């Protein structure tokens, strides 16, 4: 009998044995698949978001300068812009005017922003798709804004930002400088912060140091810091992802521990009978290996397949309530699939290997005892 045929016979027998305990094993595969599905969904979505953040935010300003007053972010004087422009190595320095606006009628937060260069006329706004969805606003509609002194102004929706850019623009309201100052009360001569572009990216650290010395009440935030922020948010070693990961791993450890802590009397009896009818210890171990492999490999593959469908075809529908939190305005975007083979390999070694090993160990113990003694237990 060829080796392959021998293995196939053992697999046939293993599958029949698993089917005899259909309910228990189906439940096991379901739970196991869910654990892998949860982990793989987190891995896939964080990997895709990280990739998206890294490529999209590459064109952020090289340095953003914030002014700090008593440890808090404060408005920065326009005169600071010229001081920064004079620093050698700075290609451009432009003030940014932006802020938050809470709309009490819908309970949503918007980001008000004054774009650089010429903008449409006074009294008009360009809104992100998320804002349009929340307000049910169309082109030409008037949107009321409550100003800092309690009065109201209405601005006309002149255009909408593309739906494809929702990941960065969903909550944006672009408006003129005058309208921005009228709503927020930011006095003339002051800005929210300053965006700096360097001639040579290798000089960024030196420029930041010069800014710190020249303007001691400011804090330069480098582009690397911005990118690292997103690396950290979606890093599996920190925050809520670690909690999810730890929960899944503990669930899995319990699963494997239950398996490794001993065989049921029925399983022991089965091993005794097999040994009694002439199976070698090695055959029993191979059978148990296949038993573990059938369950863990099937669950792993099913979990990964469902996770991919969940994250990239349904836009992580199950994670949506978690990601939305209390947000009224939430961007609708479809992540660009990105799979890291290393993550798949990590998941495989975390789930399939320990379970398979955990199945073999107690069987090996049972298979080395005298079959008569095992059957009498």
């Amino acid at each position, binding site marked *: 009998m060829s080796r392959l045929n021998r293995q196939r016979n053992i697999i046939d027998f293993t*599958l029949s044995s698993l089917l005899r305990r259909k309910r228990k094993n189906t439940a096991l595969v379901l739970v196991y698949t869910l654990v892998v599905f949860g982990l793989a969904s987190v891995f896939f979505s964080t990997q895709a978001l990280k990739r998206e953040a890294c490529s999209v*935010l590459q*064109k952020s300003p090289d340095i953003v300068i914030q002014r700090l007053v008593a440890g808090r*972010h404060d408005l920065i004087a326009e005169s600071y812009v010229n001081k920064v422009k004079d620093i050698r190595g700075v290609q451009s320095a*432009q003030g940014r005017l932006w802020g938050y606006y809470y709309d009490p009628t819908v309970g949503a*937060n918007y980001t008000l922003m004054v774009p650089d260069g010429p903008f449409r006329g006074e009294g008009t706004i360009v809104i992100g798709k998320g804002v349009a969805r929340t307000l049910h606003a169309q082109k030409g509609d008037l949107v009321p804004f409550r100003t800092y002194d309690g009065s109201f102004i209405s601005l006309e929706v002149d255009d909408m930002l593309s739906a494809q850019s929702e990941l960065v623009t969903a909550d944006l309201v672009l408006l003129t400088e005058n309208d921005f100052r009228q709503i927020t009360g930011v006095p003339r001569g002051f800005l929210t912060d300053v965006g700096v572009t360097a001639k040579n990216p290798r000089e960024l650290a030196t420029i930041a140091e010069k800014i710190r010395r020249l303007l001691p009440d400011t804090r330069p935030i480098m582009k690397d810091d911005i990118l690292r*922020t997103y690396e950290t948010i979606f890093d599996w070693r920190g925050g809520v992802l670690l909690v999810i990961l730890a929960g899944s791993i503990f669930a899995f450890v319990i699963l494997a521990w239950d398996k490794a802590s001993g065989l049921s009397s029925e399983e022991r009896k089965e091993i005794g009978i097999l040994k009694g009818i002439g199976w070698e210890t090695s055959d029993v171990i191979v059978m148990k290996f296949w038993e573990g492999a059938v369950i863990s490999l099937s669950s792993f*593959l099913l979990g990964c397949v469902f996770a991919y469908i969940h994250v990239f075809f349904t836009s992580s529908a199950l994670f949506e309530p978690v990601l939305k939190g209390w947000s009224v305005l939430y961007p609708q975007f479809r992540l660009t*699939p990105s799979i890291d083979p290393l993550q798949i390999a990590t998941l495989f070694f975390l789930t399939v290997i320990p379970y398979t090993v955990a199945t073999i160990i107690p069987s090996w113990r049972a298979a080395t005892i005298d079959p008569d003694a095992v059957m009498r237990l």
Partner: protein
Amino acid sequence: MFMRKSDFFFFFIAVNVCALLLFFLHAVVIQGNSETLLGENSEMVKRLRLTDLCLFTDARYTRHPAMTDLNTPFQDHPSALEHFPSGTLAGPPPHLRSQ
């Protein structure tokens, strides 16, 4: 269709492996196609000089996590505790923690 149970098992594994391989291929193809979209989005980031992704809009410090302060989550009232759900997802940026 299947003579033996092991045939069914191998078929099942093969289907799943093929599905995973197809997904890998799908990811590569979509990535290629989305280069234009990513380019457009990064142009938007450059034009408006944006610094953050619009992921969480419930709290100011999670809407622009890169631009936030360490004290912003706690400034609603004296001894205020961080209470926005997105605050558990988006921790403080590393450049604030290293200060």
